[in-house]
């Protein structure tokens, strides 16, 4: 069996994109990796050949991706407020459908564990549930008073969680859309800057532990006052929230000063969390053991990272970069 070790992480491929990248995801079958780009396209690379194909249809940036129909259909969520369905295997995929899903940006999309529902959220403060198969609206969830940055389904499938600019986190019952509770235990990742008169915050990444007992909300922790202006006063941070109580258990942070935002988070079955950061002085891959605040390993990236995806083989990671490169990393021996 191949040994997987965070400390072995190294770059195995650097795939060229037409513009700076914004997000990425391997398809569940592991054949492709997709990324949203600042030229408003989504790029598909076939991993074996490196062949790139542009998916065009959105009128703004695509910032979040997901898969339905047993991994055969890609869902794209755009800052144009539209939600797209695409057959992943077509030579040049065209949208099966593109629907006007939100007024303003869609910042996040997630698929329910049973694959039947798609959840979206964005700047119109509404969380919406859609049928994964036909794109019909199932229900709307109202309650947030600030832009909603992230959505995630609980692994049990009965709950949906959404978190906003001020890190207000809401727990919704999927079956009827009822708001069950709201907690602000990740609010440490928000600050109102009185001098600049703006909000600094937002749940930039979010993921449940597979056992459903903890929720990680990623963003940045303000450690200095010049984050707005120079972006130098932040630390990529994930708040670990106990799902049962809604209380914060700890903060995962890098031990070194690394001004950046935590744009991506995922759990590795070998017992550690992986985060990808990007910001003022570049980016890092960060590795934390469960329930240990400090990172046990970090890898400097060649350019700020803006997302993260773990390949189904558990050995590879993909990072979309500012320098218009999608880089693939392996956590096994070179």
């Amino acid at each position, binding site marked *: 069996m191949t040994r997987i070790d965070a400390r072995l992480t190294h770059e195995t491929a650097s795939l060229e994109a037409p513009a700076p990248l914004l997000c990425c995801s391997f398809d569940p079958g592991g054949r492709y990796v997709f990324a949203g780009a600042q030229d408003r396209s989504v790029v598909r690379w076939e991993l074996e050949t490196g062949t790139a194909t542009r998916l065009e249809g959105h009128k703004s940036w695509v910032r979040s991706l997901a898969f339905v129909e047993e991994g055969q259909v890609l869902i794209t969520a755009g800052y144009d407020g539209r939600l797209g369905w695409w057959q992943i295997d077509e030579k040049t995929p065209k949208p099966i459908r593109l629907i006007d899903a939100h007024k303003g940006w869609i910042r996040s999309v997630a698929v329910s564990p049973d694959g039947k529902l798609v959840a979206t959220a964005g700047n119109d*403060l509404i969380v919406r549930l859609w049928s994964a198969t036909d794109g019909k609206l199932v229900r709307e969830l109202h309650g947030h008073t600030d832009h909603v940055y992230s959505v995630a389904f609980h692994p049990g499938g009965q709950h949906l969680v959404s978190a906003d600019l001020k890190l207000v986190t809401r727990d919704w019952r999927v079956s009827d859309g009822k708001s069950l509770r709201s907690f602000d235990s990740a609010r440490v990742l928000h600050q109102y800057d009185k*001098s*600049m008169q*703006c909000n600094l915050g937002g749940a930039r990444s979010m993921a449940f532990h597979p056992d459903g007992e903890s929720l990680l909300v990623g963003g940045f922790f303000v450690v200095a006052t010049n*984050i707005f202006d*120079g*972006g130098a006063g932040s630390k990529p941070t994930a708040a670990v929230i106990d799902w049962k109580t809604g209380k914060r258990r700890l903060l995962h942070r890098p031990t070194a000063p690394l001004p950046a935002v935590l744009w991506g988070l995922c759990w590795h079955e070998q017992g550690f969390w992986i985060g990808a950061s990007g910001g*003022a002085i570049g980016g890092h891959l960060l590795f934390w053991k469960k329930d240990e605040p400090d990172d046990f390993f970090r890898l400097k990236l060649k350019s*700020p990272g803006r997302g993260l995806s773990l390949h189904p083989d558990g050995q590879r990671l993909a990072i979309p970069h500012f320098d218009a490169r999608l880089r693939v990393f392996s956590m096994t021996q070179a």
Partner: protein
Amino acid sequence: MTPHTPCGAGSHLIARRQMLGGLLGSVTTAGALAPIGQAELAAELTQSDRQMLIIFLDGAVSQLESWDPKDATDTGGPFQAISTSQPGVSVSELLPHTSQQLHHLLLVRGVNTKENNHAKGKYLMTKGRRQEPSTDYPDLGAVTSRLLTRPGARLPGFVHLEDGRRAAGKPTSSGQDAAYLGPRYGSLVIGDCQPPEHSSPLAGQSPESDRLRRQFRQRLNQRFARRGNAATRAFAASFEQAEQLMANAHVFDVSKEPAADHQRYGTHGFAQNCLMARRLLEHGVTCVKVMHTNYDTHNENFNHHLEQLGEFDRPFAALIEDLALRGLLEKTLVVVTSEFGRTPKINSKFGRDHWSNAWSLALAGCGIKAPGVFGRTNDNGTEVVEHEVDHRQLFHTFLKAVGADTRRHFDVNGRPIPVADPAAGPIEEILA
């Protein structure tokens, strides 16, 4: 999301005492001023009741997220361009309310000021010239006040409105902005829509005792005036101004505006300042400047423009609509500017940096040809390709639009200083 900070939560800031301090602090310069022909000026002004409203988007608003969107280009960013009430002209989707008032606006899209430093850029855009070690120049508002305010006006000629930033300890003006014109023409700074501080009589002081105090001071002033100079005259004038201010303190009470208008403009600081600006213009203040801060978005330009222009859009549109409906736009020049623009290139932090080579501002109201667009940048906004203009030409243009003759001079201690940079002139193509 936009924070809705209730106006009134801040401290009282300015004024009578601050104004007196300002007057006394710079009285030497003011005293040496021999004003531009006062009688001549007064005669001119009987023909003009023009006013000016300056809205300064502090920190440098992005032209691509406001007046000059570059939809679907490498520099355009995530926002789309939307159509407006001016056929064929688009603005950023961040200005949905303003887009419906664009038939009142002239967009100047070819500004090149060649200065990327905040302080220096602000100096250029507020004073119309580069900073010089030998001379400090007055703010556009002070010049407007000096040239347009009638002698004996009951209200200050230049009022500067700002919100929370002052309370946060970073005010955008000290009120010392009149340079050689003298503090009489400097701005009265109002923070958080509060009436000028100390503009009501002292607690426990009866009107009669106040009258006697003033009478006594005037008697002393008259005695002193025989051997007085400009400094003592300025000192005495400061009391007269303060008395006028106290008598008209109600003008600064924005709560007297209808509740429906508060609702329409919004309750946050900038919204309340827009409503206050309308009130002050209606009461005849010559020049009002409204600050909105902060647009210095090296980091997360798009999120922060969502927030800041989300605040700006609705009250600004309401203000333009109201000025038009009330006939005030016919005699008021509206200038919406910054110290410069922001880079077309998007940096690694989703930010835009400083960019003075090709940026935009918006004008409305009297003296200019609105609606319209003047100047053009290339497809991705990196350079001006048609009708490039700079701060000097704009300064001339703003003043000429309100009826001032910018070829004249101020006489400062016998030294003639041109009203505006004589090396440039107004942009005739956009003057009505």
